[in-house]
């Protein structure tokens, strides 16, 4: 409907323009015909018409003037239209409404020809209506046709929409693509691609939750067992040792929960990092100091080589967690009287941390798997969470750093190397 009105307005404005031009042309033709006729003929012709009525819309007004400004003829003297020596078209307001006037100096006299503006407007309306009415009659027909065509065009989309509406939030199987038109196929394929990625992400998440629940059961089983043994204790010595075991069990369960939370925090879509410029040597020194007690308890020689400041951009807390996991791991898996060395290096505009120990190392075939969540190497007596290296990898990759496991220079210990991206010159 709105379209129809707009079309009508457009038609009217076009017609008005055309009618205007046509009328102007008509005024000029009349003026020229007067100039080629003898004045008398005009006068005689005009004198016959005494019944002139300025309200007659179709009536021309004709006036002639001598160049000195004396009126020689006027078909409607009552109007009192003055001479304006300017040649050309002009709209003049009079007591009986606006007039369109053409004025020209021809053969030694001024000729003024005018027509009421109202007349040409009415003409324009009449012509415009004649053009618009068939359009209005056509409107319902056209709209019905458009409705049918659009509906048919959208039918595949409606089908896709219905099949999307019908499924539950957990159903992520791809949408059917057979029989789809080429226009809609790319959309459905893109949707299917998204669904597939979403379903993969959900599966990973679901497995993680299931794994986490199962992994928590083992420390809980230990705690429950230790608690029952404490209840059964016959002597105070037995009870004390049972409570010590129980405390260890609780600590282990708490550590696992802690590590699970840390892992979740440092997932790619976890907490927001505050990336600030910082000195890696400072961070390393800080963490080594925090771990020194653990090292002393096991009589492990914990060395740090971080003399030069090494600037990087990173999240302080995340880097601390990463280094803590790496250094604690090194201490835990190194036998007493062993040695753990932490080195920071910023050569070649690339920041690098190396942590080497004199422990048993990790055989090459397992160096990729140890990053998996809950992966614990066979025969380890350490009751770790199996999450430490998964956390380390998450944090490193959020800093676009790479973690490599290598053999230490002593030939069997582990060397962990964290390489940060190269800085621009």
């Amino acid at each position, binding site marked *: 409907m709105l379209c129809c009105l707009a079309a009508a307005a457009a038609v009217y404005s076009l017609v008005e323009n055309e009618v205007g031009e046509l009328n102007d042309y008509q005024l000029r033709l009349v003026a020229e015909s007067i100039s080629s006729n003898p004045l008398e003929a005009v006068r005689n012709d005009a004198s016959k018409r005494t019944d002139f009525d300025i309200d007659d819309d179709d009536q021309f007004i004709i006036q002639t003037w001598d160049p000195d400004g004396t009126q020689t003829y006027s078909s409607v003297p009552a109007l009192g239209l003055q001479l304006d020596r300017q040649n050309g078209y002009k709209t003049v307001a009079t007591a009986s409404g606006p007039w369109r006037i053409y004025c020209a100096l021809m053969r030694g006299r001024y000729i003024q020809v005018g027509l009421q503006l109202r007349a040409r407007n009415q003409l324009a309306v009449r012509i415009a209506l004649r053009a618009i009415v068939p359009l209005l009659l056509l409107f319902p027909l056209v709209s019905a046709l458009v409705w049918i065509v659009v509906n048919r065009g959208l039918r595949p989309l409606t089908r896709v929409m219905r099949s999307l509406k019908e499924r539950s939030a957990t159903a992520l199987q791809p949408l059917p693509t057979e029989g789809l038109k080429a226009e809609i196929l790319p959309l459905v394929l893109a949707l299917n691609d998204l669904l597939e990625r979403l379903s993969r992400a959900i599966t990973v998440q679901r497995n993680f939750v299931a794994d986490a629940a199962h992994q928590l*059961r*083992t420390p809980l089983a230990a705690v429950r067992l230790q608690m*029952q043994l404490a209840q059964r204790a016959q002597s105070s010595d037995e009870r004390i040792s049972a409570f010590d075991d129980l405390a260890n069990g609780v600590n282990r369960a708490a550590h696992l929960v802690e590590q699970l939370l840390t892992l979740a925090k440092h997932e790619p879509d976890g907490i927001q990092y505050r990336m600030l410029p910082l000195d890696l040597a400072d961070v390393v020194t800080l963490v080594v100091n925090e771990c020194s007690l653990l090292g002393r308890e096991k009589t492990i020689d914990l060395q740090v080589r971080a003399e030069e400041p090494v600037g990087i951009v990173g999240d302080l807390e995340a880097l601390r967690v990463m280094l803590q996991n790496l250094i604690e791991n090194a201490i835990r898996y190194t036998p007493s009287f062993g040695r753990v060395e932490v080195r920071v290096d910023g050569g070649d505009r690339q920041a690098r941390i190396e942590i080497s120990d004199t422990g048993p190392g990790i055989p090459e075939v397992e160096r990729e798997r140890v990053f998996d969540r809950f992966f614990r190497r*066979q*025969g380890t007596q350490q009751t770790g969470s199996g999450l430490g290296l998964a956390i380390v990898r998450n944090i490193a990759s959020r800093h676009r750093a790479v973690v490599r496991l290598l053999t230490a220079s002593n030939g069997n210990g582990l060397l962990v190397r964290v390489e940060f991206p190269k800085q621009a010159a």
Partner: protein
Amino acid sequence: MKLLLTEDDEMIGSGLRKGLRQESMAVDWVRDGRLSLRALVDGDYDLWLLDLGLPDCDGIDLLRQSRERNVATPALILTARDSVTDRIKGLNSGADDYLPKPFDLNELVARLRALHRRSMGISDASLRYGELVLIPATHEATWAGRPLLLSHREFAVLEALLERPGVVLSRQRLEEKLYGWGEEVQSNTIEVHIHSLRRKLGVGFIRNVRGVGYVLQAQT
């Protein structure tokens, strides 16, 4: 009662060993599948307590392999995975019972005893022989209706003898039933227990078959 414990977790392993010893069970503890299989084939165990979450192999596979090698020891599996399909899979692979983590120690002991009774073809929870009644679940013993005070080891010796009355048990066999690996066994320890039991039950109750071992006196 001699039990093989397959458990890789240090805390659970040491806790179980401690708890089951308090129940007069002799516990041998191994931490991986390979050693378990060897112990089962070579040793003489009344029960096998198996944790399915082993680092070197799948516990279910281990169970299957042991059954393929004709190891008939009744097995109770401990596992963190407790869905119905997991249970069915475990039982179909040759397990006799199933306990999800975290478990209750008392329930575990009760299930182990029940499993042992079933494997011995005993349906009564108490063992009876003449005037003697042993209730392994509660460690109670009565002689002619009067309570009898027994140490863990003494109870275990009587239990072993009562399980198969009429069968002569060698001293070595009894030692195996009483002690797990790594436990100090004095050379005359069984004789000491037998001597003490004879004082409590009368000299004739346990007969010494010279050069073979011990057996309960036949009841008339």
